[in-house]
């Protein structure tokens, strides 16, 4: 096999140059789409370094105004003078570091908890045979179908009966036992070939050992995916904290950023600067999770 492959890899120069041309075209296409996709992000960056000070606005001209006239929306993306001090002001105007810590703590706790709790449940749903299995699973699925608007008040009443309103726990515990995560991992586990487990059973492994030594090591990409999603969802969650948190020092970022919003207006430059800083951890998590998506190294030789 390796010899054959090597033989195939030796291609004539014409094919190779044609492939290189195709690859460049593809690359340019991706770059073009990518730039379009990032436009709103660039807009956020531009807005975050603009100013609302009238004296500065007069000096710098209308380029520094926040919502420029659409015709020049591309030219006026960035101001004449970049006010980087906005990023410092964010930390002065609100307890940004505290909100940031709360967000990291909550999102990481939920992510870790969800990966553990959901992978175990998903394994049971995908492999064990027990009564009511499919009915119970569909019940999980069904809860995803109820819009959160109407469960807002019952959730609040439930948690306040337990005395859990205004605690980290109220944000972390309910999010761990996620129907979404269970469903997602079940789908992945269903896709893992059973031949491996059968071999393990012959070697005398029980379900716990199979889970630890066969399923988990093969689920890197799946767990990483769930990790990214779960972190992102909890990082951005506004409605949950809005209802469950009262104290300022327990607020996570999305709730804390509302401080830049007034009843009828908002401090756009600072709001955008604060939002941009808050994106950074998500990017870090994404890049960490990415390490699991390296093509064709994991299951090679398993199936065929």
């Amino acid at each position, binding site marked *: 096999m390796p010899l054959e492959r090597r033989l195939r890899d030796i291609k004539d120069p014409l094919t190779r140059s044609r492939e290189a041309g195709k690859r460049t075209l593809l690359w340019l296409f991706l770059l073009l789409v990518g730039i379009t996709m990032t436009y709103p992000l660039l807009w956020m960056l531009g807005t975050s370094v603009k100013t609302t000070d009238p004296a500065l606005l007069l000096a710098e001209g209308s380029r520094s105004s926040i919502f420029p006239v659409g015709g020049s929306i591309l030219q006026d993306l960035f101001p004449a003078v970049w006010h980087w001090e906005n990023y410092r002001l964010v930390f002065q105007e609100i307890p940004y570091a505290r909100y940031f810590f709360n967000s990291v703590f909550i999102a990481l706790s939920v992510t870790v908890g969800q990966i553990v709790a959901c992978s175990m449940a998903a394994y049971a749903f995908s492999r064990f045979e027990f009564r009511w299995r499919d009915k119970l699973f569909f019940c999980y699925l069904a809860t995803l179908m109820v819009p959160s608007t109407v469960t807002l*008040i019952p959730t609040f009443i439930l948690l306040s009966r337990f005395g*859990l309103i205004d*605690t980290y726990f109220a944000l972390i515990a309910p999010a761990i036992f996620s129907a979404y995560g269970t469903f997602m991992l079940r789908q992945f586990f269903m896709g893992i070939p059973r031949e491996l487990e059968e071999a393990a059973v012959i070697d005398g492994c029980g379900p716990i050992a199979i889970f630890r030594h066969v399923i988990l*090591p093969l689920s890197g990409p799946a767990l990483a995916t769930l990790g990214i999603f779960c972190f992102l969802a909890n990082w951005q969650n506004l409605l949950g904290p809005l209802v469950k948190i009262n104290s300022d020092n327990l607020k996570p970022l999305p709730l804390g950023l509302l401080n830049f919003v007034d009843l009828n207006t908002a401090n756009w430059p600072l709001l955008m600067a604060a939002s941009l800083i808050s994106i950074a951890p998500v990017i870090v998590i994404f890049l960490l999770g990415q390490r699991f998506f390296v093509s064709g190294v994991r299951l090679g030789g398993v199936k065929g």
Partner: protein
Amino acid sequence: MVLTMFRQGLLCLLLLLLLPACRKASPPHLVVLSPGGAAGKAVEQIVEEFRRENPGVEVQIVSTPGRDYYVKSLTMLAGKAHVDILWLGQGFGMFAGRQALLDLSPLIQDDPAFSFRHYHPAVVDWYRYRNALYSLPYGIDVQVIAYNKDLFDAAGVAYPTPDWTLDEMLEKAKALTRYQRGRGRTEVAGLGFLDLDYRYDGLSLLSEDHTRFGLNNEAGKAWMNRNLALIHRERILQRGSDMASMDRLSAFLNQQVAMIEFTPWDVQETYHRAPFRWDIVAVPTGREGKRKGWASSAGFGIARNCRQPRLAWALLKELTGPAFQRAMLKTTIPASSALHGEYLAANAAPPEHLSEFLRMLDFMDPNPRITAFTEVEAEWVYWKDLALLRKVSVEEALSGAESGINRILELHRKEEAQ
């Protein structure tokens, strides 16, 4: 690697489940719901003073800025959470009609030190509901017209005068409008309004006693037809989104519209961002020589299930009193007429004629403060949009709105009778 991560995760999860064991210290005596932003800062300042004067009283401020304030406060009230004082804006009617608030009259009678002189009498009356007083206002919002002097000069149009009429406004708007027929787009629109307010024609959305829809008549039809002409035929009026949204002001700041409906909370933003000369003027007098403009107010009330009404009343007085009103001078007109001089001094020109806001205090026409107003308004906007987009005829829209709104009002009358 996956395995070690998993084992560590399991450990963390166990630790986490032990978390609820750590509980908080003693609960606060008073809980205040604050809408954040400028008002939120003022609340913090006043509560800080209150704490100093009343050592031992713990006050918790629950601040939720933006539109989410209502979701938060409603959830807390519906969940019977501990709430004592809450901020109330235009949504006052929906709380009062459902008995969510405490009547302040007994507290006022027992308090010899209290006087109404810090509150505009007409605005206090907005907060009366069935012989009860449910709230006190700290600020008043009225509507005026803001205009772009540069655009007026460029078009050679004279600036509005304080006693201008509706016809004059429309004439000026027509002269200011620059429409490129060939390119099918409006360069400058004279008016950047939601639509031409029915108040300018001396009309009301509901009948005098708030039991029926009030626009399904000849006057209402004429009003609707004029709007249609202004929007589609003459292209003088460029419809913006609702008053609370950002782009209404942005169109003005970007000089796409020459005149907009303007409120006290717009002053600072426009002052900071407008790269042109501008000023404000009272709304024009209507066809019958009468002047009417939208108005609203903001204040604080006490929740019905408040545990310590007296303590809450003491704080409420501060939260609506002169000190609080002073802290809000850059956002809203103070409810006390004694502070109006300070209001004018606190806001630098432009606008040069800031006092036009104060003049409007004599022509205030607030939205009816009835339980069902949000619902009535949504029904009205639905039919109005259909008509102004020419999806249905004016007659159809008005009779549709009439039957929809009358049904809502009747339903609520029945509910309240029960």
